[in-house]
């Protein structure tokens, strides 16, 4: 039986990909950021997940304005890094897990989630930066990946409540997959950031850390934070944090925190990172 063994939350700032790709991980600016991922890189070497369900958002890379899926699940064999305007990142192709992905997709639709199934797409920094953060440089990613793309660009994104419920449904789907697989679920994006207008550069460490506290909590109060609160408190792009709720919803009521990290700044952004495991 497949099982979700851990949940990982992480920012996915494109500049982290640049820093990694250009060998700047340990310079004065990036050192304190990457130091917070050292623990996780060692832990992932022990954990050796077979599959990562990687919740992220496409940043106008695979999807343009013609099609805007709320929840899209990648059921394909492999995905290439997208050219976001600088040429594609020189990182390995992302290898899918179509068996589990289709199983989850079918289960979610039966469970009344209105998924869009994707068989071919390129994946942008939202997906490849977390892979670099968690695994460092590699010839091939040490896990297969099921991309789960969430619309957080065109309003409204899905509610926090809906995201949490999707996580719960993903957990049920994974549990009903017969093969013995070690599955992790990652929620990415956030934390505080606003990339536009006069208020750009907004950072709210108190709110971000309270959000991390709520993720660690036994109750599910965090699912009820309205969109407007993310926007007011953490900047217009802080809304990406709703994606962490999919990860958290998949872990069940009680969780144990294995690791937590917070740093300001990275580019326009606060960096947040947490590793949780289900505690049943």
């Amino acid at each position: 039986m497949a099982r979700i063994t851990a949940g990982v939350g992480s920012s996915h700032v494109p500049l982290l990909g640049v820093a990694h790709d250009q060998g700047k991980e340990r310079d004065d600016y990036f050192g304190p950021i990457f130091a917070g991922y050292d623990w996780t890189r060692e832990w992932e070497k022990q954990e050796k997940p077979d599959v990562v369900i990687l919740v992220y958002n496409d940043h106008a890379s695979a999807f343009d304005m013609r099609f805007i899926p709320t929840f899209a699940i990648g059921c394909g064999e492999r995905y290439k890094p997208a050219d976001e305007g600088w040429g594609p990142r020189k990182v390995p192709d992302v290898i899918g897990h179509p068996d589990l992905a289709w199983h989850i997709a079918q289960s979610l639709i039966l469970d009344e989630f209105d998924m869009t199934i994707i068989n071919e797409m390129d994946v942008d920094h939202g997906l490849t930066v977390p892979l670099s953060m968690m695994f460092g440089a590699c010839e091939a990613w040490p896990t297969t990946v099921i991309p789960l793309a969430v619309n957080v660009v065109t309003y409204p994104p899905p509610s926090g409540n809906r995201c949490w419920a999707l996580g719960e449904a993903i957990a049920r789907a994974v549990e009903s997959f017969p093969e013995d697989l070690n599955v992790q679920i990652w929620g990415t994006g956030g934390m505080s950031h606003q990339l536009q207008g006069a208020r750009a550069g907004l950072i709210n460490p108190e709110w971000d850390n309270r959000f991390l506290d709520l993720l660690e909590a036994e109750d599910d109060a965090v699912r009820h934070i309205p969109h407007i609160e993310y926007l007011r408190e953490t900047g217009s792009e802080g809304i990406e944090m709703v994606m962490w709720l999919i990860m958290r919803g998949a872990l069940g009521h009680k969780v144990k925190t294995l690791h937590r990290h917070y740093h300001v700044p990275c580019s326009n952004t606060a960096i947040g990172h947490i590793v949780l495991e289900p505690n049943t």
Partner: protein
Amino acid sequence: MSHLDIHAYLAEFEDIPGTRVFTAARARQGYHLNQFAMSLMKPENRERFKADERGYLDEWAISEEAKQAVLARDYNALLDIGGNIYFLSKLFSTDGIAFAQAVSTMTDMSWPEYRQMMLDGGRSPEGVRSIREGR
């Protein structure tokens, strides 16, 4: 389910200082502008655009106002007419400038000042949460 009212939901977004939320109204207004920006993901389009910005822009169903704002790299103006920052970022990378530097042009700070503000912990949310409530 809560059956939230969409009108009330959207109205709140107008109460955030210095922020344009990418609502349907903006998505519709900026449709072709954003599709133009997206086209710059292809290296051959980036080359064509760089060689003749005005000529390339004229291939798109966008207003003269939008074309002028693109030529001037006036990102606040582009946001006002429905540009979305993730689409517009293809223009930053075509220009070869860092995301944060492009973002700084939308504020009242120079790029060094903006960068220093970020190093100092970023912009405080104090006073810029709500126009109505002044907090």
